[in-house]
C-alpha cells in the first residue's frame, strides 16, 4: 500500500530526541513502509494549529521508521516540538524533488550544511553510507551558531570516526569548552580533500549561506552544474496547486525543494522574490 499524499495520516510517535534547545527529532513507525527519496519532505499537521513542510531526516533504506527533525520557531512547529512519545503526528506526503543520489554515483560527494539544514541532508548521508561502495570520497561540512546548536551530534561523532568519511564542523561562536573550529562553514571548503572535477556538492542552509557556499565552491574549481541546493518557501498544498510557494516560474513544493544551482541562481538574485 502506498501513502496517498492527499490524505493526512496519523502515526504514533515512538521516539523523541532533543537535538538542541529548540530542535527535536520525532520518530514514527508507519503501519506500512513509507517510501521516500532523500531530500523529500512531508506536511506535518499540528491539530488545531496548521500544517508545515518538514524534511524527512531518516534513512530511506529503513522505510518502517519515519523520522523528522524540526525547529520550534512558530505556532505550528512549537506545537509539533511539544509532542511527546505516544502522541499522534499527522503526516501527509512525501513531496518534492530529491537530492541527486543516482547522478552522484561514482563521484565524490561534498555535503555542506548550516544549522537545521543538516536535517534534509541526513537522509542523503545515510543513503550514501548504506551504499558506500557506489560513491567516492564523502565529506560533510557543517556549520552551526554555537556548539550547543549542533544537530545530530551523535551522528557527527559516528561519521567523523569512520575512515571513509571526512567531517568538518565549525561554529560561529564556541562555548569556553569548545575546542573545534570557529568561523563560517565556507571557510572549511578549501581545507577539504575533494577533486572538484569529479565532485557533486549538496548544500542546505540559509539562502545567503548557500549563495556564498556556491561561490566558494566555484573558487575551489567546481562548476555551478555540480552544485545542488534546497530552497524553502511558504509551502501549503505540497502538490503545486495553491501557488503559495511560487518563486518565479518555480513551484517549490512540486519542482523543488532540491534544485541544480544554475536553475535557481538567477531567481535567488532577484530581491523582490
Amino acid at each position: 500500500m502506498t501513502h496517498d499524499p492527499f490524505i493526512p495520516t496519523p502515526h504514533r510517535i515512538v521516539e523523541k530526541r532533543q537535538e538542541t534547545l529548540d530542535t527535536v527529532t520525532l520518530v514514527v513507525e508507519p503501519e506500512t513502509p513509507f517510501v521516500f527519496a532523500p531530500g523529500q519532505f512531508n506536511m506535518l499537521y499540528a491539530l488545531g494549529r496548521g500544517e508545515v513542510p518538514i524534511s524527512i531526516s531518516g534513512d530511506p533504506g529503513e522505510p518502517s521508521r519515519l523520522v523528522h527533525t524540526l525547529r520550534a520557531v512558530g505556532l505550528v512547529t512549537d506545537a509539533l516540538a511539544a509532542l511527546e512519545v505516544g502522541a499522534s503526528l499527522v503526516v501527509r506526503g512525501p513531496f518534492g524533488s530529491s537530492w541527486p543520489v543516482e547522478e552522484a554515483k561514482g563521484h565524490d560527494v561534498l555535503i555542506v550544511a548550516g544549522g537545521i539544514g543538516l536535517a534534509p541532508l541526513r537522509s542523503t548521508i545515510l543513503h550514501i553510507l548504506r551504499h558506500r561502495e557506489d560513491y567516492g570520497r564523502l565529506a560533510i561540512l557543517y556549520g552551526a551558531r554555537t556548539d550547543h546548536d549542533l544537530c545530530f551530534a551523535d551522528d557527527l561523532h559516528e561519521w567523523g570516526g569512520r575512515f571513509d568519511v571526512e567531517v568538518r564542523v565549525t561554529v560561529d561562536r564556541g562555548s569556553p569548552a569548545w575546542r573545534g573550529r570557529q568561523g563560517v562553514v565556507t571557510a572549511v571548503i578549501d581545507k577539504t580533500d575533494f577533486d572538484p572535477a569529479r565532485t557533486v556538492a549538496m548544500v542546505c542552509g540559509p539562502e545567503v549561506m548557500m549563495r556564498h557556499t556556491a561561490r566558494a565552491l566555484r573558487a575551489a574549481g567546481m562548476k555551478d552544474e555540480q552544485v545542488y541546493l534546497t530552497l524553502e518557501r511558504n509551502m501549503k498544498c505540497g502538490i503545486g496547486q495553491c501557488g503559495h510557494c511560487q518563486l518565479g516560474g518555480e513551484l517549490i513544493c512540486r519542482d523543488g525543494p532540491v534544485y541544480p544551482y544554475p536553475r535557481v541562481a538567477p531567481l535567488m538574485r532577484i530581491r523582490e522574490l
Partner: protein
Amino acid sequence: MTDLQRMLAAHPFAASLTDDDVARLAELACVETFVPNQVIYREDEPAREFLLLQSGRVAVEMHAPPGVVLLESLDAGATVGWSTFFPPYTWGCDIRAIEATEALAIDGVRLRPLLEQAPDFGLRVMRALLATVHQRLERSRLHRMDLYQR
C-alpha cells in the same frame, strides 16, 4: 630549492608569488612550533613577524574582561599576523595555539624595508596579503549576519 622554500611555496599565501619571491621570503623564515594553549602573540605587543600555518589550529582572541572572546579559529593554510605590515606594528588581538601547531614565521621587521626597495616584489607580497585579508573580511561579514538564527 631548500626545505624552507618548498614549505613556503606550498602555502596558499605564495600561490601568486614567483620563485624569486619565495626565495627572498625563505631567507627571512624559520619554522616555529607551538604547544596547545600557548599564547603566540599578545595584544599591543610589538608585531615583528607573521605566520604561515603549516599544521594545527590557532585561535584569534580578544581580551574582554571578565574573560577572553574567541573570534575565529584558523587552520593550516592560514596567514596570521598582518599587524607586522602596518603601523604601529603592534598586535591587534591575541593569537593562541588551540592544538599543537607548526608555522613558518617570517621576519616582518626585515621584510618591511625590502618591500619598499623592490616595488615589484612588494606589490606581489601586498597582493597576496590583500587576498587573504579579502577572504577573511568576507567571512567576517557572513559571521556577523548570525546566519543560523534567521
